[in-house]
């Protein structure tokens, strides 16, 4: 664990508000499961995730074998010069995986990060989109 992570985490955390990721990671530091909404519109699936403190360049979205994996890292450097006196939440990276059906047009997945909210737009493949059938 990084020195910084330890410093933020060492004070008793009375009310855990984030769910820690229990799997193994190759990077040191705590990992949390970001809170996520998944909604569906006629054209696409939209995945919205809360990843406060994450910068655009530290988000990694991967799609492999129909598994969509999001890995978002936070920057611990602002905490270096700070000494925790009262803490209510822990700070860590974010990770989450979803399996995606092949009804998704994987080529056209779009990601956007604003105000600590990551939005992934997964367009449906044309054959999976709703069609209105005209009666002739």
């Amino acid at each position, binding site marked *: 664990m990084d020195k910084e992570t330890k410093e933020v985490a060492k004070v008793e955390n009375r009310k855990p508000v984030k*769910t820690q990721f229990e799997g193994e990671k190759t990077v040191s530091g705590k990992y949390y499961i970001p809170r996520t*909404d998944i*909604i569906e519109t006629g054209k696409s699936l*939209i995945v919205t995730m809360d990843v406060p403190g*994450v910068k655009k360049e530290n988000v990694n979205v991967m799609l492999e074998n129909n598994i969509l994996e999001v890995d978002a890292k936070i920057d611990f450097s602002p*905490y270096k010069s700070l000494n925790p006196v009262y803490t*209510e*939440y822990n700070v860590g990276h974010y990770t989450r995986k979803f399996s995606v059906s092949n009804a998704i047009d994987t080529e056209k997945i779009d990601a956007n990060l604003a105000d*600590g909210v990551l939005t992934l737009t997964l367009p449906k493949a044309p054959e999976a989109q709703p069609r209105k059938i005209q009666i002739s």
Partner: protein
Amino acid sequence: MLSFRTLETLLGLQEALDLARNAGFFETSTASSGVNPPVNIFEKNGDLVLVAELPGVKKKELNIEVKENILRLSGTRTIDYGKDVSYHRIERNSSKFDRTLRLPFNIESGKVLAEYKDGLLVVSLPHAESDKPKKIAIQ
């Protein structure tokens, strides 16, 4: 008859149970319990720095007030996906929050700096000069 000691023990037990329940230890959901929004407070060169995670909150919907040693943090987080959508999973929620914190010393309210970036609110709270201990020279 209950002695004062017994009552105190019972009240202590009650308090411990409440604490355990509020800690979310028995919960498996990702939903939060307890204060909203949770804050971390740090010390830096004798001043305080408050950090809160407020993803998706608009700057104009955030309100910070400081008076003497009281800090009030209020705002609204609105999540609206519009009509004609179906929901598969909802873990994030719209919320209205209003928290008041008592700090250990008075704050120089004119010098408070608040920054909101990447969903993080960082408020620097400088120790008021008038509230700092004075060194007294011995005559």
